[in-house]
């Protein structure tokens, strides 16, 4: 009996969770438009509700009311299944993502592994979406999304493993508890950077938005989706964004730990801070090209995350003082940053070259004309 009550509780909790997540998505949509607006010297929505607060609601209602088109050429079954897969995998991981000490549906002992496992399934949804639309842009986008997401999944997994090594647990609550003295951001800044960047790529945000790049593949896998189907993808995308931000907060920023305020508030505060950074990055950067993206994943992120795992393990194994890890990871970060800087700024140095050569040429021209 108690078991059934338990079950009922978790069902209720999950329903609430879904509602809360939907609200969060609405808030994120609003926040994103507002934040981008401010980044770009404008207001963002203002006319729907106070401060445009009802804008995402209006969008959502409208999307539901839109006609839902299933194109003729599409593979109907796949076209229908794809959004379902995406949303289910996006939502299921929230079973174990805690929003506070006791604000969680279930503490799964294998929490982190569970999240990793189900996050992978979502990739499938995007590939299938592109495939099912039988649209060239969709297929290109689907392929791109697969290539991108699988490549960046590996750094995410490895860094998560590094955190697990540090905390000696896969349970998110214990991981947060282990950060009570200092967040892992301090000891493993490299991990934070990798996780954040790979997380950006996982949710397809600028500069990694190549799979739904509007100026190239006009929305990628979603190009044929309209109305409710499309909004489901939209929902999943924002849930994923929130999940990545929440995981960043939990794994590196000390989760709900923080003085004074209730834990949920701290958690939301940190998560939204991460999300604002995501929007900020989005408002600043251009996007990469697919070969650069893949090269970045495999040549930079994967080796670096290997390095992260190994330094974390070594640090644990030999019980080194914590600042060694900080130093090690900063060294990794520095070396990687320097290498990237050298490679990427090569053109910039060539500009100086151009200018020098032009100046020289101008001088010769001037001297020849004067003589």
């Amino acid at each position, binding site marked *: 009996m108690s078991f059934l009550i338990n079950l009922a509780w978790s069902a209720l909790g999950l329903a609430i969770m879904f509602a809360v997540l939907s609200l969060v998505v609405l808030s994120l949509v609003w926040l994103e438009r507002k934040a981008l607006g401010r980044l770009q010297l404008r207001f963002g929505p203002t006319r729907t509700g106070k401060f445009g607060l009802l804008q995402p609601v209006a969008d959502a209602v409208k999307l539901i009311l839109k006609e839902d088109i299933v194109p003729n050429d599409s593979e109907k079954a796949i076209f229908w299944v794809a959004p379902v897969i995406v949303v289910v995998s996006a939502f299921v991981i929230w079973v174990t993502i805690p929003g506070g000490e006791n604000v969680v549906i279930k503490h799964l002992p294998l929490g982190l592994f569970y999240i990793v496992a189900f996050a992978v399934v979502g990739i499938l949804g995007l590939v299938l979406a592109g495939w099912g639309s039988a649209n060239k842009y969709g297929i290109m986008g689907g392929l791109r999304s697969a290539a991108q997401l699988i490549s960046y999944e590996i750094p995410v997994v490895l860094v998560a493993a590094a955190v697990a090594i540090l905390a000696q647990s896969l349970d998110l609550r214990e991981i947060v508890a282990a950060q009570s003295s200092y967040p892992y951001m301090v000891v493993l800044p490299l991990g934070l950077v990798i996780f954040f960047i790979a997380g950006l790529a996982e949710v397809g945000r600028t500069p990694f938005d190549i799979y739904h*790049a509007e100026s190239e593949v006009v929305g990628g896998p979603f190009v044929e989706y309209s109305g409710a189907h499309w909004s489901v993808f939209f929902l999943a995308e924002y849930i994923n964004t929130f999940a990545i931000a929440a995981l960043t907060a939990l794994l590196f920023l000390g989760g709900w730990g923080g003085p004074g305020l209730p834990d949920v508030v701290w958690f939301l505060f940190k998560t939204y801070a991460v999300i604002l950074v995501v929007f900020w990055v989005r408002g600043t950067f*251009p*996007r*990469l*090209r697919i070969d650069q993206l893949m090269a970045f994943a495999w040549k930079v992120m994967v080796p670096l995350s290997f390095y992260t795992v190994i330094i974390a393990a070594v640090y644990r194994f030999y019980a080194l003082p914590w600042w060694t890890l900080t130093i090690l990871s900063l060294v990794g970060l520095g070396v990687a940053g320097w290498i*990237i800087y050298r490679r990427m*700024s090569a*053109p*910039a140095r060539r500009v100086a070259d*151009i200018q020098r050569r032009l100046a020289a040429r101008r001088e010769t021209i001037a001297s020849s004309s004067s003589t």
Partner: protein
Amino acid sequence: MAEPAVPTAIPERADSQPVEMLLNMGPQHPSTHGVFRMVLWVDGEKIVDVEPHIGYLHRGSEKLCEGEQYHQIVTLFDRMDYIGNFNNELAYCMAVEKLMGLQVPERAEYIRVILCELNRIASHLLYVGTMGLDAGAMTPVMFSFRGRERVQALFEAVSGARLMHNYFRIGGLKEDVPDNFRQLVDELMPLLKEDVEQSDRILTFNEIFLSRLKDVSPITADEAIGLGLTGPMLRACGYEYDVRRAQPYSVYDRFDFEIPVGLDGDCWDRHWVRVQEMYQSLRIVEQAMEQLPEGPVASSLGRRLVRPPEGESYVRAENPRGEIGVYVVSDGTDRPYRLKVRPPSFCNLSALRRLLEDTWLADSVVVLGSLDIVLGEVDR
């Protein structure tokens, strides 16, 4: 692909094994800058071949010009290169003036130059913004449009319209600039400089932007000349050529400005050249404001019907996108017998096939952006 610009038929390619995918971009595509269409053959993400299709904005302007009186044609020229309107008006007016042997009042020439250079800045700002969009950055376009908006406000104060000014007249200007013109320009200049700098800073040397544009579709100066590339496209290859300098028209010989050139002729160089040109244009405007003489601006023709003598004339001018040429054939009536424009974008775009050799699908967007085409003048 070795021979330049040899289009093939769309449906099938000769290869027996279909290793390429046919991808259609445009006419409605966010990054084709209007209604341009290209059919790409891609192998994975690599572009194998491309066939550009234009004419989705072919409005028959050249033919229409034959049916309009000379003073009405200015409106059509406004609408050809609808980003460099003043530059276009200038080229047309010069062509007819040459035909008639008209002398333009000095003050009018200066005002024309000021407006044209401001228009060049506005045009390049639009370019920077759309280039940012093509490369996936959303904010530069906002910054650059802030500058554009400021320039347009000035244009509105001068000509009464933000875009379609219809302000230059054959032999002069429609009317003198407003009394507070000097003050307006003085207010505008520092702000505009800031806008230009900001859109420059946020994009030009950004590592991601660099890696997207550098070494993409490089072209040598010789090839560029053969393909008829002009303007920033040519200068990016390191060929220092600018009609304003080579055959100074209007009063351009009185200003001191540099011609920025690139080195490799790749997309980034084109971008860089345009950005530098904005700074040079700012310099020209400053000098022109200093030298701006007093005097009449209106055409000596007044409102008389323009009826050039029988004859032909061809003028060249440096538009933001490259060299424009206007060829007018007059038969002595009040309408031109034939009017032909050499639109810079048209020539630049015709080199697309060559430029997209050995590029990625994502590059096609950037290359197209770096061409900075305006479909209105490509298709006319």
